């Protein structure tokens, strides 16, 4: 005897095609909420303008290595806009769109990549985790946060992001498994931007989707066009509300593309074809939303140039603030190590201060 005891499928969600045309029969309310879409569009443009500025600062020696978010704006901002303040975000290292939405400042982003721990001291939700460089470890911290909300019966959700490369790490499967074992209010986003530095998505594994990693532990697992803000927001909103209502965790694979080098220390021309990148630009998220807004009569060139001017001014203020931030000082190496500085570290601190005189 043999019988199918379980079967699975992974749905792919998209509302806007790459030319910004709405398709499908059921038009979501969000597609007609122009006030909201315009505010999102503005943040997308600000995020990108900021990103270009950060790269320029790095190129002129005013910033350390910087990981760009170019091309990820819709996906990242959709994560932010689907979350509530009291939810908890555990980012990877290039999630500025989500973080700006949540209240992390541009100055803080610059401080962090400018080699200053004060960048991690977010103005945004104070309970959010800081950028996470050791890949995929954040997924388990998010599972831990979700465990707290469950144990305390709080209606809060933990959301984390990991890359297509990072999805190969055991931590991701362990977080997925924990979410299933404890029915955690957790959403794990796999930000599939097709590349992990020089390693293409196809070399991570041969599965059709990365979302299906969630199916192994019985999680709600979906794929979405991460360059379509409308679809991304709706998919995230559903996953988050499901988690909030005790209906289980989700894995959301967002399909997007890393439009530039991995970081400013990388040279993507060593390993990928220009033609592929050019093709990817045709699906990028900002032009897509703009075209949609224009086709609905909600946006025009004049509004655009005003927005660009505002964004540039806003970023200049942040850059000035960053560049004028004084040294954190020697004591800062010691003062945050423990709640109370142990005596041996106190002696080392005094030595370091004396040496600097």
């Amino acid at each position, binding site marked *: 005897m043999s019988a199918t005891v379980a079967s699975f499928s992974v749905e792919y969600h998209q509302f806007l095609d790459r030319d910004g045309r709405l398709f499908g029969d059921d038009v979501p309310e969000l597609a007609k909420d122009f006030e909201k879409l315009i505010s999102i569009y503005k943040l997308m443009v600000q995020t990108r303008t900021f990103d270009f500025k950060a790269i320029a600062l790095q190129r002129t020696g005013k910033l350390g290595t910087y990981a760009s978010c170019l091309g990820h704006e819709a996906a990242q901002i959709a994560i932010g806009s689907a979350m509530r303040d009291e939810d908890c975000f555990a980012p990877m*290292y290039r999630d500025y769109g989500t973080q700006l939405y949540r209240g992390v400042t541009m100055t803080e982003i610059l401080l962090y990549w400018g080699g200053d721990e004060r960048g991690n001291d977010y103005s945004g939700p104070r309970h959010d985790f800081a950028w996470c*460089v050791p890949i995929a470890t954040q997924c388990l911290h998010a599972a831990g946060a979700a465990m707290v909300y469950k144990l305390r019966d709080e209606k809060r959700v933990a959301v984390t992001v990991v890359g297509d*490369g990072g999805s190969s790490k055991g931590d991701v499967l362990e977080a997925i498994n924990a979410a299933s074992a404890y029915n955690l209010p957790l959403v794990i986003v796999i930000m599939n931007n097709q590349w992990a530095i020089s390693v293409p998505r196809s070399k991570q594994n041969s599965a059709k989707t990365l979302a299906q990693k969630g199916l192994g532990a019985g999680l709600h697992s979906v794929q979405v066009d991460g360059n379509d803000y409308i679809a991304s927001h709706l998919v995230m909103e559903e996953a988050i509300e499901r988690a909030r209502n005790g209906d289980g965790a989700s894995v959301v694979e967002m399909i997007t593309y890393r439009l530039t080098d991995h970081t400013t220390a990388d040279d993507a021309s060593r390993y990928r074809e220009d033609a592929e990148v050019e093709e990817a630009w045709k699906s990028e998220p900002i032009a897509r939303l703009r075209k949609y807004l224009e086709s609905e009569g909600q946006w025009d060139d004049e509004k655009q140039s005003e927005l660009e001017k505002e964004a540039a001014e806003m970023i200049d203020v942040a850059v000035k603030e960053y560049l004028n931030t004084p040294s954190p000082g020697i004591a800062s190496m010691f003062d945050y190590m423990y709640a109370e500085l142990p005596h041996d570290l106190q002696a080392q601190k005094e030595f*370091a201060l004396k040496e600097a005189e």
Partner: protein
Amino acid sequence: MPKVAMVEALSMAMGSELRADKDMVLMGEDIGINGGVFRATSSLQKEFGDLRVIDTPLAETMICGMAVGMAAQGMRPVIEAQFMGFVYAMVDHMISHAGRMRHRTRGRLSCPMVLRMPFGGGIHAPEHHSESTEAMFAHMPGIRVVIPSSPSRAYGLLLAAIRDPDPVVFMEPKRIYRWGKEEVEDDGEELPLDVCFVLREGTDVTLVSWGAMIKETLEAADKLAEQGISAEVIDVATISPLDMDTIIESVEKTGRCVIIAEAARHCGVAAEIAANLADSGIYNLLAPVKRVTGYDTVMPLYRMEMKYLPSVERILNTVKKVFAVS
């Protein structure tokens, strides 16, 4: 012969041994077409193909666990952790398996693998890219820990590490990846593991260091020479097992010892050397053994990293204290 930097010498050593030993393979993230983020494996995949220079999924536990399995079954995997900050997921396999495979099977199985990784600060890198936690590996039984500090030593020591029948952690001081170019002959000649190298002979004080701090240590020795103090400089090179004979012999001559390490102070390799000197060299000492190290803090982000790393000045000040006693 053109001069090469350390990172090129490492590449030469790997190429040489890939040519000589059909059982050797390289595995790691971005080591293929990209040639490693520091280009240490640059052009090796082109020459040896993607079945011998293998790009892996982003999964350190997988890389190291598979290397243990491959080594036990007769191959010579040389794996890379992209930065030392990302090696920790590999540690389970190193301590629980690689270091004890031979012992626990009474020699039936062994683990001839090499785990390479760039480490150390001073290059303005992002968070988790600048730590020096060599003491952690040095504390693990059954594993050699080797750290070169010049192109020629990098070449010879890496060859020896790959050919060694036991697991070797090979730590590459990335701050000096491109410093101190030398002529290095690609002759397949290895250097001995488990010995220290005396880089400069001297009579008044022994300066002991390894890795990138060799640069500051040699500079300090130059400054001391100007002051009429003759410093002997020892590059420990293999920090586990430790060749104390060479160090003790030197201290017998000089009577003074300063150990310079970039890593945190507490329970570091410098402490091990100092303890050995207390044990076997104490009657020759004219002054207390001193350490110049990083602090017992998290490695700061780059704005403060040069305040963390021992400077030439910090070394000189410490030597001065040693001479103040005797």
